[in-house]
């Protein structure tokens, strides 16, 4: 019988790192405060003591250096797992991400590959200081050569992280910090993977398909439950990977319902909702019975926390968006 532990999402990530460090000597964890401090969110707690400073590495404060040296390590066949402390601080490393991490395989015609996984907590809702709350996953989904994974449950966080670390290509692994400690789940102690590129249906329904991911999965399910009491049945699909998107699952849910709403906390313009809408137009136009709704953050810089609750999609705004699609 498989042993399990009752873990939060951030504990499951820690457990996933622990498992992969143990399974593969080529795995190293690196970043600011990931070593002795155990990570500012405790995602690497205890790993430094167990695996030592050559495998759980405190680096100088330099994001470009962190990503760029991980690129070099990965080119030599290691599997580095660099952490950027908050996704809002990824930009000094952005050049390394788009110019090299995404392109090394292509540029070297397959001689060099980068089996690296760049982790970063992302998203809003925790009353954090400026630049600590943005959702800019669309930047990375836009970049060919990268995979972009966003877990929303502890079990899947561990499995998706393992799949990312073992993947032959570079992965941006964005962790929704709002739900780092929101709930617990039984997580197997043994290694396992959850496949990249596959969406998960969180709730079955015939009236409307609602696509979401990350921290927005919870308020979306809450809205779906409320509407369920009124006889409106939502099919809620958690994308889990936003690059590559699971086109098949997206189209299937839409064909079943003919109506769709996409929910993300990232700004509307250029966000994933637009991409999903385009997929539905390309693949299932004749099934469409209503305009496809978008419930998203607004196209404004993410506010300081006094107003952040007005920025983030609430269950009430999600309900409104779903009703609009259903009542069209």
């Amino acid at each position, binding site marked *: 019988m498989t042993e399990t532990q009752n873990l939060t999402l951030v504990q499951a990530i820690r457990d996933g790192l622990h498992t992969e460090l143990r399974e593969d000597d080529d795995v190293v964890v690196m970043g600011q405060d990931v070593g*002795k401090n155990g990570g500012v969110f405790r995602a690497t707690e205890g790993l430094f003591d167990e695996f030592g400073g050559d495998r759980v590495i405190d680096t100088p404060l330099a994001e470009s250096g962190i990503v760029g040296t991980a690129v070099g390590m990965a080119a030599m066949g290691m599997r580095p797992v660099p952490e950027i402390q908050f996704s809002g601080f990824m930009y000094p490393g952005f050049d390394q991400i788009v110019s090299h991490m995404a392109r090394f395989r292509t540029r070297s015609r397959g001689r060099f590959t980068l089996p690296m996984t760049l982790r970063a907590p992302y998203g809003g809702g925790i009353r954090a*200081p*400026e630049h*600590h709350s943005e959702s800019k996953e669309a930047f990375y989904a836009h970049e060919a050569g990268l995979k972009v994974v966003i877990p929303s449950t502890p079990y899947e966080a561990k499995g998706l992280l393992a799949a990312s670390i073992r993947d032959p290509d570079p992965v941006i692994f964005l962790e929704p910090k709002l739900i780092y400690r929101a709930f617990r789940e039984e997580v197997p102690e043994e290694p396992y993977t959850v496949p990249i590129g596959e969406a998960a249906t969180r709730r079955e329904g015939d009236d409307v398909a609602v696509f979401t991911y990350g921290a927005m999965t919870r308020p979306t399910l809450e809205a779906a439950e409320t509407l369920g009491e009124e006889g409106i049945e939502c099919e809620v699909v958690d994308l889990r990977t936003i690059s590559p998107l699971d086109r098949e699952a997206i189209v299937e849910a839409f064909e079943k319902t003919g109506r769709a709403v996409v929910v993300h906390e990232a700004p509307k313009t250029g966000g994933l909702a637009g991409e999903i809408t385009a997929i539905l137009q390309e693949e299932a136009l004749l099934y469409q019975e209503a305009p496809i709704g978008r419930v998203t953050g607004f196209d*404004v810089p993410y506010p*300081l926390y*006094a107003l952040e*609750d007005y920025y983030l999609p609430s269950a009430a705004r999600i309900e409104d968006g779903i009703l609009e699609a259903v009542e069209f």
Partner: protein
Amino acid sequence: MTVFDRAYDDTVRVLDEDGEVVGDLPDLDDESLVEMYRHMRLARHFDGRAVSLQRQGRMGTYPPLSGQEGAQIGSAYALDADDWMVPSYREHGAALVHGLPLKQTLLYWMGHEDGNRAPDGVNVFPVAVPIASQVPHATGAAWASKLRGENDAFICYFGDGATSEGDFHEGVNFAGVFDTPTVFFCNNNQWAISVPRERQTRSATLAQKAEAYGIDGVQVDGMDPLAVYSVTEAALEKARDPETDRPRPTLIEAVQYRFGAHTTADDPTVYRDDDEVESWKRKDPIDRLESYLRGEGVLDDERVAEIESSVEAQVADAIDAAESMARPDPRELFEHAYAELPPELERQYEEFAALHDERGDAAFLED
């Protein structure tokens, strides 16, 4: 000989740990020295209150400054009102000296956008959270001043960790190339969250990084407000003088210590020893200046008590003022993103306002 003609590890000192004079005293009258002391007490008291507001849920995450008052107040005192300050996120004390009301600092950390808006006439840039990102701004702003033939100086604050970032090197390099009137003031408080100074760089000092950019570099005892004042004053004077025969930019490394956590979200006991903290507390910049001023007969128990109660009242008033501000109007989300709202954003605003008019906060906030 100037204060810059010395080895990088030859730390400038004026007062020793006991407040005894060991260097050249700056030209400051007694009242200025008492004002400087009062500001340091004010910054320390403010800091303690801010940490406790955070603990009580009345403020968000806050970065404490205790231990760093000597560097902050000493350096800011050297500025002219027309000079500009380009801070990171921990310079509440320095910004206060340069005219930023405490209420603004409180509002910012309470999550109000208004906190980032310095009053007109207060030459302080907005807080810069991403590490070292403000360094090139300080170079560019000083460059603008130079190009326009103005004689203002610019001081840029950042920490020891920032010297590992590309932005630091690019900003300081530009300053060297274009000889801008910029003082780069490194608050080396020994710790970038959990990473010690020795792990940021193999360089023996941070001051010596100036060498590579061809500008002046000097190390000062950051726990010594008078030494900090002297060095900053000399650097600013040189920055303002287009005829100087030295490089106008300077890198100052102020060696100091953060007594508390990186922010209220951090627990420093995980990564550093109490002994180390205690040994630095014996160098407390406030005690040091107080000992000196008592020795000079400028401060006595009565004056110190007076200062204590006045700073307590000033901080209490600032907290009242900040807490009596209503939550910002949610419509402010859309203000200041552009000079004029683009049509799509105008549409989002209308939708938002209509929903708020109809359903109020219930449409946005969880119960």
